[in-house]
């Protein structure tokens, strides 16, 4: 980092060509959007929370009772609910994730013709592509009845059910962070440790893991942030009673679910104030996570005295437990989804009773099919992509190649802040924007497709920025020096040499962002999605979308046919996101291979290890 920044400042002259200054200014403008956006979110939260202080509502909001009908708007039970659910999910997911990573890194069996680590890591990557609402749907109809019958009493919609599913949701985050760290640490250790007669288990437990101290913490912090910020799973599974739960079988309500529920019921203004107080709390929690991440200094190898064999045995037990339990859980949920969803696939699923050709070519209305929702999701993703991709890529270029000094640091910390904003907050931001417009310029303002797309664009913006930035910064330094020595200006270097070299990686980042935009439910719930809107005709119309259809039908289905529709929609969405993720991954993989071929120094990994 320090190196690349130095190089940025003294690398090449500024504005060698007349157009250069304009381009730089445009790139800077793209980066400024992130800063403005963070400032906007903060301002909104502050503005809408103001009545808490000026009108003395804080006593009512910061209390333990939520009874809006009688004017009691206490949000503390929800804050406790968020913390309880987030930490319990983490307590489940972190050890399982650690076990899974250890299993994949050598604690599992080493059969000559079959390495179980490969399918295991493939499964973890598949898990990253499963939309939240799909997990939610499968859990509502598989896990919740199990909880209900297993622990007789209660509805099954409980802290326990939500925590179990949430643990599956955050697990891939944890595994991928740990896997990345171990990959950094182990190559240098493997031969040394082996030459000293250490077993693979000893090497991992006593040498590699202590060196990954930072990764272990980062994984926990990121996992917690993801768990606290999630809306759909608590909303669908935890029962949503506004109370502090007495035990794991009790119902609870999180801040995220609370925001979604209150906006949906559209109550009076005092409720809105408490809503934004929830938002502020949630923002505070997610940013505390963000700060926690920064506070993690790289720990320099304080290897404690190893505690003998018990630790190794524990690690092996943990590895085997997670290698069996996690795939079992995921396969059960996804298998159930396939079992219920596959029979529904067909033209009728998408078009109902309308002839498909009429719907496709002449825009005939479809009533009992997913076609309007598919179209809605398509339009939504298209508009959001048009907004986010140019901004994100430009800002990534700016941060990687042009930003320096204080401005650069400010922008990159704003991008980090933005990346930590839970999606429901982004929806709340859009909802607040409409409230503001109604009070000021435009009394008839209402939530719509354009607003949803705008909020989704802001949601995926940080992904795009960091994907572009990482790919550019990963390019070898010689490339920049070569281009500079040939007399190219900075922008020429970026546009003609660096961007083409990084293009596949950038494209991979774009596809991931599109996948993220297609599956998100929390944002659109607050900004204009409805059921039965039909095909949207204009940007200011309400619209339907696949993820919201799944959520709605899971909760409100009137007939078994409607439930089948939900499973069909879930399967469709899952296929879509899995396809996008696979595409992004293959692009990245080909970038890595291509890099060693095109930009490597001529020695392959094999030659380096055997020379």
């Amino acid at each position, binding site marked *: 980092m320090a190196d690349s920044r130095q190089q940025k400042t003294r690398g090449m002259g500024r504005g060698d060509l007349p157009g250069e200054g304009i381009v730089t200014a445009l790139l800077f403008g793209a980066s400024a959007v992130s800063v403005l956006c963070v400032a906007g979110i903060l301002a909104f939260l502050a503005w809408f929370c103001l009545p808490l202080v000026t009108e003395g509502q804080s006593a009512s909001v910061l209390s333990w009772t939520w009874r809006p009908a009688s004017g009691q708007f206490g949000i503390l039970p929800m804050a406790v609910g968020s913390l309880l659910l987030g930490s319990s999910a983490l307590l489940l997911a972190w050890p399982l994730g650690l076990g899974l990573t250890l299993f994949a890194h050598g604690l599992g069996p080493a059969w000559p013709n079959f390495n179980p680590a490969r399918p295991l890591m493939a499964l973890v990557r598949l898990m990253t592509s499963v939309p939240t609402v799909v997990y939610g749907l499968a859990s509502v109809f598989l896990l919740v009845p199990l909880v209900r019958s297993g622990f007789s009493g209660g509805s099954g919609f409980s802290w326990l059910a939500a925590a179990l599913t949430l643990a599956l949701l955050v697990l891939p985050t944890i595994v991928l962070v740990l896997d990345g760290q171990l990959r950094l640490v182990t190559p240098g250790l493997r*031969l040394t440790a082996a030459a000293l*007669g250490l077993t693979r288990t000893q090497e991992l437990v006593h040498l590699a893991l202590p*060196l990954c101290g930072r990764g272990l913490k980062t994984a926990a912090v990121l996992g917690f942030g993801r768990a606290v910020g999630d809306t759909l799973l608590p909303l669908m599974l935890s029962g949503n009673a506004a109370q502090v739960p007495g035990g794991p079988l009790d119902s609870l309500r999180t801040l995220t679910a609370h925001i979604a529920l209150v906006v949906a019921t559209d109550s009076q203004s005092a409720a809105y104030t408490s809503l934004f107080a929830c938002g502020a709390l949630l923002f505070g929690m997610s940013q505390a996570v963000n700060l926690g991440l920064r506070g993690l200094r790289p720990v*320099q190898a304080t290897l404690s005295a190893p505690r003998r064999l018990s630790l190794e045995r524990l690690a092996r037990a943990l590895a085997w437990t997670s290698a069996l339990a996690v795939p079992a859980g995921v396969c059960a949920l996804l298998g159930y989804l396939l079992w219920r969803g596959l029979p529904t696939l067909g033209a009728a699923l998408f078009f109902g009773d309308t002839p498909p050709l009429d719907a496709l070519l002449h825009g005939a209305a479809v009533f009992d099919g997913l076609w309007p929702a598919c179209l809605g999701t398509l339009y939504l993703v298209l508009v959001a992509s048009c907004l986010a991709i140019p901004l994100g890529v430009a800002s990534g270029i700016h941060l990687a190649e042009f930003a320096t000094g204080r401005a650069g640091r400010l922008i990159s910390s704003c991008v980090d802040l933005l990346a930590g904003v839970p999606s429901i907050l982004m929806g709340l931001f859009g909802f607040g924007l409409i409230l503001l417009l109604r009070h000021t310029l435009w009394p008839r303002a209402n939530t719509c497709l354009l607003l949803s797309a705008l909020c989704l664009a802001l949601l995926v913006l940080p992904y795009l920025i960091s994907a572009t930035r990482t790919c550019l910064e990963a390019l070898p330094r010689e490339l920049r020096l070569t281009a500079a020595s040939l007399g190219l200006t900075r922008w020429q270097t970026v546009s003609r040499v660096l961007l083409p070299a990084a293009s596949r990686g950038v494209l991979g980042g774009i596809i991931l962002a599109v996948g993220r935009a297609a599956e998100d439910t929390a944002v659109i719930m607050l900004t204009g999605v409805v059921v039965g809107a039909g095909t949207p005709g204009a940007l200011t119309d309400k619209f339907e979308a696949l993820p919201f259809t799944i959520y709605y039908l899971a909760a409100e289905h009137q007939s078994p046919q409607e439930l089948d529709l939900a499973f069909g929609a879930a399967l469709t969405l899952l296929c879509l996101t899995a396809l996008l993720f696979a595409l992004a991954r293959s692009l990245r993989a080909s970038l890595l291979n291509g890099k060693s071929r095109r930009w490597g120094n001529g020695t392959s990994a094999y030659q380096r*290890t055997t*020379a």
Partner: protein
Amino acid sequence: MTTAIRIKNLSVAFAGRTVLDTLSLEVDSGGPTVLVGRSGSGKTTLLRALNRLNECLPDCATSGSVELRLGNEWLDAYAPGTSPEALRKRVGMVFQTPNPLPVSVARNMELPLELALGLGQQERAERAELALREAHLWDEVKDRLDHPARTLSGGQQQRLCLARALAFRPKILLLDEPTASLDHKSARGVEELLLDLAGRYTVLLVSHNLNQARRMSQRQSRRMFVLREGARLEAVAREDLDDKERLLALMDELL
């Protein structure tokens, strides 16, 4: 002179590419026995075949037999019952570049003894000090044992790695161009140390520095082998070793 290492028909391939092809060699105890050859001729692979370290690299296939005399018994390195860890505890290795573990000087010495040999606190400390003295490093590091090993100079780090191997009290020491990454002065220091050690251990040394190879074969018990491309192994005749001119001519032709 007794035989300490007996290699028969050893073949090693990585990802289907043959690096060593049916190679046989007997190494006498003591030494140092020096192995020279162009880079890429498979010297390192041959050395790593002796403590089965090639298996830690991807896509490696080894065939043939390697027998090592450890004390009074012969150990077949590739026999099904031989565990690689047990073998590596008794065959020390020093790498081309210093590879201290990212911990303190003292932990570098003691951690492997604790994990691999399961020694108690008292014995670990004793062995560590003895080995550091043997590697002529004790006086330089005795006041900074708790400093990170990476803060030592390159030569000190390499002697630390040597001491770490010596602390296991191995019968055989495998040295893979141990002075390649050191400056001239540190290299000479390590060389003298190795000559000194060769009286007590069986030392097999890979080198592609001709002067070093010549100096290392000044001893009485010297042996030198040339590993040619195509994995042919040639012993260098004793008279060639004595005659400086002929040796240099050989080296020129070789390197």
